[in-house]
C-alpha cells in the first residue's frame, strides 16, 4: 500500500483545483488582498522614499510631509539635493487634481477622474480596503456567533436548542437590509458600525449549518469515545465536532463575504456607509450618479470592481461546495 498522507483538506483542495474558474477567482481575491494591504505604496500623493538635505524619510507615513505636487514646485527651485521615488499611481484617493476634473481615461489618469478631480484608480485601490475589511470582519463576527450558537444548540439540544432555534427564526424574519439601515440610522454610519451590524445580522445561516452538522456528528461513535475517555463538553464540541462542520461553514463564509461586500456598497451608495472623505466602491458609485450622462467611466469602473469581487467570492464558494460534496467525487 502506498503510504500517502492524504488529509481531508488535501482531498478538498484536489477537488477544488478541478474548477479552473475557482482557481482564477482565488488569484483575483489574493490579488485584491495584496492591493488592499499595499494601497499606501501603490497609490499615494506622497513619495514612497525621499532624500532631502541628506536625510532619508518615508513621506507616505507622514501626513504632514509635502505632497508630490508641492515637491514638484520645490524641485525646480531647490539646489538639487532632493531625490524621491514616486508610487506607481501618484495620486491619493483625496488628491484634488483641479486641472483635470471629470477627465476621461488618459495617460495621466488611467481610469479618469471624478467631478472633484480625484483619480479613479487611486480611489478604487483605497476603496478595496473598505470592501475587503468589511467583508472579512463582518463575516468573521457572523461566523464566530454562528459557530458558538450552532454548537450550543446542536450539542446540548433541549432548552438551549429551543431558544437558539427560535432566535434564528426571529432573526431570519427581519428583512436584513432594512434592519441594518434602521440600526445605522440610530448608531450613526461608520465602517466599524457597518461591520458589527452586518455581522450580528448575518450569523443565522452559519448557526443553522453548524447546528445541523453538530446533530449529525453528535450521535457518531467517536463522540461517545471522546466522552468515555473523559473529555469535557467544550472540548468535545470544539475538537471533535466542529472540524466536521468547518467545510460547509467555509462555503457559507465565502458566499457571506460576497454579500457583505455588496451590502456595504449598497449602504455607501445610499449614503449610510463610510464617511464621505473615505473612498469606497459604493460611495464612488453614489457620486457617479450626478455625471451618469457624461462620465461613463465613473460608474463602469467601481461597478465592475464590485462585480468581479463578488463573482470571485461566489465562484470560490461554489467550487468549495462542490468539493466537499461526497456525491460529486469522481
Amino acid at each position, binding site marked *: 500500500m502506498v503510504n500517502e498522507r492524504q488529509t481531508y483538506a488535501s482531498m478538498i483542495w484536489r477537488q477544488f483545483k478541478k474548477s479552473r474558474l475557482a482557481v482564477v477567482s482565488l488569484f483575483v481575491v489574493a490579488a485584491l488582498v495584496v492591493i488592499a494591504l499595499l494601497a499606501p505604496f501603490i497609490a499615494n500623493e506622497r513619495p514612497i522614499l525621499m532624500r532631502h538635505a541628506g536625510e532619508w524619510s518615508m513621506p507616505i507615513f507622514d501626513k504632514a510631509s509635502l505632497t508630490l505636487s508641492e515637491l514638484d514646485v520645490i524641485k525646480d527651485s531647490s539646489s538639487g539635493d532632493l531625490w524621491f521615488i514616486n508610487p506607481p499611481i501618484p495620486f491619493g484617493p483625496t488628491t484634488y487634481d483641479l486641472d483635470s476634473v471629470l477627465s476621461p481615461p488618459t495617460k495621466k489618469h488611467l481610469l479618469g477622474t471624478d467631478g472633484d478631480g480625484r483619480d479613479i484608480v487611486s480611489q478604487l485601490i483605497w476603496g478595496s480596503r473598505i470592501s475587503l475589511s468589511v467583508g472579512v470582519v463582518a463575516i468573521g463576527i457572523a461566523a464566530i456567533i454562528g459557530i458558538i450558537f450552532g454548537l450550543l444548540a446542536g450539542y446540548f439540544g433541549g432548552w438551549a436548542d429551543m431558544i437558539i432555534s427560535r432566535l434564528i427564526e426571529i432573526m431570519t424574519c427581519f428583512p436584513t437590509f432594512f434592519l441594518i439601515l434602521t440600526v445605522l440610522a440610530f448608531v450613526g454610519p461608520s465602517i466599524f458600525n457597518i461591520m458589527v451590524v452586518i455581522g450580528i445580522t448575518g450569523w443565522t445561516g452559519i448557526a443553522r449549518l453548524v447546528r445541523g452538522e453538530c446533530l449529525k456528528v453528535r450521535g457518531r461513535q*467517536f463522540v461517545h469515545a471522546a466522552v468515555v475517555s473523559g473529555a469535557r463538553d467544550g472540548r468535545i464540541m470544539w475538537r471533535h465536532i466542529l*472540524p466536521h462542520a468547518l467545510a460547509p461553514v467555509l462555503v457559507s463564509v465565502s458566499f457571506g463575504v460576497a454579500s457583505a461586500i455588496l451590502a456595504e456598497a449598497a449602504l455607501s451608495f445610499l449614503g449610510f456607509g463610510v464617511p464621505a472623505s473615505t473612498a469606497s466602491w459604493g460611495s464612488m458609485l453614489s457620486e457617479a450618479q450626478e455625471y451618469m450622462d457624461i462620465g461613463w467611466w465613473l460608474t463602469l469602473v467601481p461597478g465592475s470592481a464590485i462585480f468581479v469581487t463578488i463573482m470571485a467570492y461566489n465562484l470560490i464558494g461554489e467550487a468549495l461546495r462542490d468539493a466537499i460534496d461526497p456525491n460529486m467525487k469522481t
Partner: protein
Amino acid sequence: MTLLQVRNLTTQFFTDEGVVKAVDGATFNLDKGKTLCIVGESGCGKSVMSLSLMRLIPEPPGRIVQGEIMFNDVQGERDLLKLSNEEMRRIRGKRIGMIFQEPMTSLNPVYTIGNQIGEAIALHEGGSNKQVKERTIRMLELVGIPAPEQRMREYPHQLSGGMRQRAMIAMALSCTPDILIADEPTTALDVTIQAQILDLMRELQRELGMAIIFVTHDLGVVAEMADQIAVMYAGKFVEVGTAQQIFNDPKHPYTQGLLKSIPSFEKGTEGKRLPTIPGVVPSLSNLPMGCAFADRCEKVKDRCRGEAVSEDPCNVGRLVRCFYA
C-alpha cells in the same frame, strides 16, 4: 477484592409509548482482575447496562431511577451515581475505560490515531508533549500495532478494522483503568481477527490487572473470556454464576435454551436442525407481570404468568430467576 458492587441498578426510558424498563434491578459484583460477561439477545438491555455504569444514559428520555454502583479503588469506596458530573468525568477514561462495537466509527476521522490516544493521556495524566508521545507509542506497542511511530501518524481510514480496534483498546487503556467495559468489541470483526483481539484483551488483563465487563451475545466468546457470567433477559438478570456453573449446570430455561442453540460437532447432531428458542423478546415497555420469558419457555406453568419471580425461588444458592429451576 471487590472492585465494583452494583446493587439494584434500574434504568428506565420515559417515552411516548410508556416507560421502557431497559435495566431492571441489576445486581452483581466484579472482582479485581476478573472478567464478567453479560450475555443476552439483542434488545435485552445489555448496552444500556454498560452505558449506565458509565453514567452515559441520554437524559431525557432515560434516567437511572434507583440503585447504587459502589466503586472501590485506591481512593476508597464511593457510589458512582452520587458523584458530580465533574468527578464522574475524571473517572471516565482514567478509572473506567470503554470500547465499542464499531471500530470503524469509534475513531474520529479527522485526527491521527496518535493524536487521539495522546488526547486521552493528556486529559488525565498531563505531562509534556514528549512524554505523551512516548506513552502513546508504548500503548500502541502494547496492543500489538507494528511500527507504532509511523502508525501513530496515520488516520483511521488508513488502518484495517482489527488495527482500529487495537487502537481503540490502546485509547481505552492509555490511563491503565481498573475496569474496562467492552460492549461487543469483536462483533464487527471477522473470526480470525476476533480471536486475536480476545487474546490481546486477556493478555492485557494479566499484564495490567484490570477487570473486564464484557457485553456480548456470542456464547463462544463468553466461553473463552468469562470468569463470571450474567445472563440477561428483558432487562433483568435471569441467571448469574461462574463460567463453570453456567456452562456445566445451567438452571434457567433461557440459559439452557441459549446453550442448546450453539452449533456443536458432537456425534448424533449431524443432519439435525439446530435447536432455537421460539418467539422474540417481549417489548421492554410492556412487560408481563410474571416471568418475561414465560411465553417462550418449555416448562411454563400458570404460576409463571401470575407472580413476579424473586432472585432465587428454588434456593439454588445463586441468582436463578425461575420457579422451576
